[in-house]
């Protein structure tokens, strides 16, 4: 028998050690997935991402067409271009998925996220918080003598920026909806 010219006992030659070396950089993509509003459909989508090791930065889902029985899932994901193409193809295979749109590449689109911030503080901090909220066009939706709940709508970056500013001013809790997105124009 001809011996193998690899070190005996080596584990570096695993049968599964075959991942391609994609040199491309990771990209952030927003996908709009129109699905049949069936029990389990969200689980299928999430299971796909978990099972194949794809990232989910944000995910929102709600019924958008009651009569047509359709829900819209908006997913923000990241990966190399090959992985993004693969994610779209894999989503397209799911029987309950009607349509997959990549809003990042299919022309301009708008993205919005809604977030609620609970900020506690008194004196200067409290005044600064409401001043900044005004600049960010955040609404006060609840108030006590020592706290506010702000509601802010905008891009994820705007929400991130607001969170950063609120941090030293007594930020206690954040609730974010995740991204909703639509393509621009007709």
């Amino acid at each position: 028998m001809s011996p193998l010219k690899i070190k005996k006992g080596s584990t570096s030659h695993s049968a599964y050690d075959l991942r391609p070396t994609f040199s491309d950089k990771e990209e952030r993509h927003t996908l709009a997935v129109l699905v049949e509003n069936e029990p389990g459909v969200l689980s299928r989508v999430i299971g796909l991402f978990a099972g194949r090791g794809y990232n989910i930065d944000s995910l929102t889902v709600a019924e958008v067409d009651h009569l047509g029985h359709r829900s819209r899932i908006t997913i923000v994901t990241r990966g190399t271009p090959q992985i993004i193409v693969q994610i779209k193809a894999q989503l397209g295979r799911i029987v309950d998925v009607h349509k997959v749109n990549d809003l990042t590449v299919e022309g301009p689109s708008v993205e919005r996220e809604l977030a609620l911030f609970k900020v506690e503080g008194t004196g200067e901090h409290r005044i600064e918080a409401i001043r900044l909220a005004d600049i960010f066009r955040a609404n006060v939706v609840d108030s006590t003598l020592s706290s506010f709940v702000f509601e802010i709508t905008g891009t994820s970056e705007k929400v991130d920026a607001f969170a950063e500013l609120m941090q030293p001013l007594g930020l206690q809790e954040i609730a974010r909806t995740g991204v909703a997105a639509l393509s621009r124009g007709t």
Partner: protein
Amino acid sequence: MTKAMTGAKMVVQALIDQGVDTVFGYPGGAVLPIYDEIFQQNSIKHVLVRHEQGAVHAAEGYARSTGKPGVALVTSGPGATNAVTGLTDALMDSIPIIVLTGQVPTFMIGSDAFQECDTIGITRPCTKHNWLVKETDKLASVMHEAFHIATSGRPGPVVIDIPKDVQFATGTYTEARQVETHYNPPVKGDMEMITELAKAMETAKRPLFYTGGGVINSGPAASQLLRELVAATDFPITSTLMGLGCYPASGENWLGMLGMHGLYEANMAMHDCDLMINIGARFDDRITGRLDAFSPGSTKAHIDIDASSINKVIKVDIPILGDVAHVLEDLLNVWKSRGRKTDKEAVQKWKHQINDWRKVDCLAFKQEGKVIKPQYALARLEELTKKHDRYICTEVGQHQMWAAQYLGFEDPNRWMTSGGLGTMGYGFPASIGVQMGHPDALVINVAGEASWLMNMQELGTAMQYGLPVKQFILNNERLGMVRQWQELLHGERYSSSWSESLPDFVKLAEAFGAKGIICDDPDNLDDAIMEMLNHDGPVLFDCLVEKHENCFPMIPSGKPHNEMLLGENADTANAIQAGGAVMV
């Protein structure tokens, strides 16, 4: 016309309407109403297996050998969980099967009831699609849709989970033609891309067809068109494990299987070709080996029905999304209408090169002494059975690779093997499914003793239904492939890779009422095989073979195609001359 009937009756009616003649199953509390309906009709044969995994593999064997979807029926809880391996197997190999599972009544779902499990949740990642039917009125339409989804696009397994109260309740039966579905994957390929491929074929100097299970799944027309295309272009052709039989092994342009244990000439051709035409294969890691060294100089075309298979691991230059038969038909038409051109001179030179590689004779072995070589056993089996109307199943391991190397397949749907999942225990129940679909054919399961023992209980099924399946066991008292890897990669430390306390297979066969044959002498092998073939009933053939034989050729994982290991008897010196490649 609307018809009112119980859910259980709907199940049977829908199966009949879908043309099902055989169901493999195992009863239990949650499917009793369906079994009661099966009892009261004669259109559908029910095959009682001995374990639910056997039911699903049998349905797979039936599906792969007949081209029709296979059906299995199991109960809730353990019935459903036992079906999971078979479902995953069918998903990996794209086999259309419909698995019906019983479920506890709807009002008990979620209460941890007896024999309850979250069947839909458990089977979601291992099915193409699945349904929990909570209303009897929807049951028939789900049944019809399930057949449509299992068999169209890239085929696959589906599960319908039916609570017991839904089986008892009465509802309205929906005819198949009334069912609307949005699932209609396109079958026609893009004509521009097809024309691109035709152009590439006209100028290719070292073209190669690389075919896979997609050709078989596309139906007999695809194999027919493929043969026409190969004959017309005179291009050489290789195939994956899954695609064996789509082009005849006796065909002039046939190179044999490629991949990790593929033939030298096939892998060398794959490495050196300048146009690779992938038809219904998926660049599996057993085929590609090291990706950055995979066929480095070729233009790659890929025909596949599944968009997610294209550019998944290998970037291709000419992607064609569509059904193999439809695309091949268009490709032939376009190529013919453009004047049936190929670079004949270059292709001839290429074929000469391939013939030089062939001379390496990578499957050569020497049968010496009184111990049967497994290769010899298969070579004799091939010689003595090739004239028969023959179907071959396998388990998983060395014997599987040897069967792929030494047996010749002339037609599609004649070769049933677990390719993607690599399920030991697949072959025996699959052979039962094949025999049910082809009662008069010769059905042989080439097995290893370890794999075979994984579903040996199905000998009871074979006996009960008088299915003359031949279990050809290459018994090396080892988990041969595991042993081989331990020898080559783990310092010859044979951790748990031999079978102690093996049964006496002849007595085991006799305990079930079947025939057992043992053979340990190469001189008696032919007679013993003939005895097996001449026996009208299930046979357990215990072929004692060389215990330490390794399976070659082999591309070690992480190596490119031109760095194959050949067996001890192959002429490696010639290979270096002929191929100019560095051989180990």
